[in-house]
């Protein structure tokens, strides 16, 4: 096993990303979908920080990650509010039942 380096972090990130994606596309419950999104964002953040450490010696990556975290917090709050509204409207948060977009 080689010494831990950039690739390790990238693979880890890819794994987390894929798992998050899986949650997004397979879960019925809207809240779990949100969880998946958070995981995806975290995977991206790992990449940012890893690059900031290994490739770019500036802190740009970290700063970007910071902004991602901020945005994620905002997104989570709004998304959750939306979910609660959906619940209020339909008495359910299952996404397969929310198909009013259908043409």
């Amino acid at each position, binding site marked *: 096993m080689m010494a831990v380096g950039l690739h390790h972090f990238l693979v880890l990130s890819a794994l987390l990303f894929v798992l998050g994606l*899986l949650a997004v596309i397979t879960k019925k419950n809207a*809240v779990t979908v949100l969880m998946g999104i958070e995981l995806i964002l975290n995977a991206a*953040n790992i990449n940012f920080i890893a690059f900031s450490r290994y490739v770019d*010696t500036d802190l740009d990556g970290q700063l970007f990650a910071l902004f991602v975290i*901020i945005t994620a917090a905002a997104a989570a709050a709004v998304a959750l*509010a939306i979910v*609660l509204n959906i619940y209020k409207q339909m008495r359910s948060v299952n996404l397969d039942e929310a198909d009013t977009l259908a043409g």
Partner: protein
Amino acid sequence: MNYFDLTFYVFAIGAVVSAGMMVFSRNLIYCAVGLLFALASVAGIYVLLGADFLAATQLMVYVGGIVALLLFGIMLSVKFTGVELRTGTLQMLPGLMIAAGLFLLLVRMVFRTEWAVNQPGEMLPTTSTIGKRIMTDLLIPFEIASILLLVALIGAAYMARRERT
């Protein structure tokens, strides 16, 4: 297998296992707990990468904020007492296939790309640097982000409040 590597594997395995728990568990609360530990492990990864401030932010925002929020969301959006908090899955098979395909592509890209890797330097405290950057050349993004947060705060509070009768 030194101290650094050990820590990395501990956190990485923690993160992946927790994430898996999140994805494959059918109980919503377990999903949330899985996410919680995945996020905490990621915070550990951050520390390994020298991002101490970000790690603390990660804990603060995700654990104290988002996960708590999600737990609230679950509890408020499901008739929970006496009922199992279950969530079904759909299109699991195509989802797994797509995920696997994507993972392979990503791994291929990771190993195929020639990263311009620099020798990582000393791990220095980042807080003051981040603060200075935010207050100088990143002031505008920072302000926009704060406005975004404010908007999200107000918007979320507005949407989630009870309808006036």
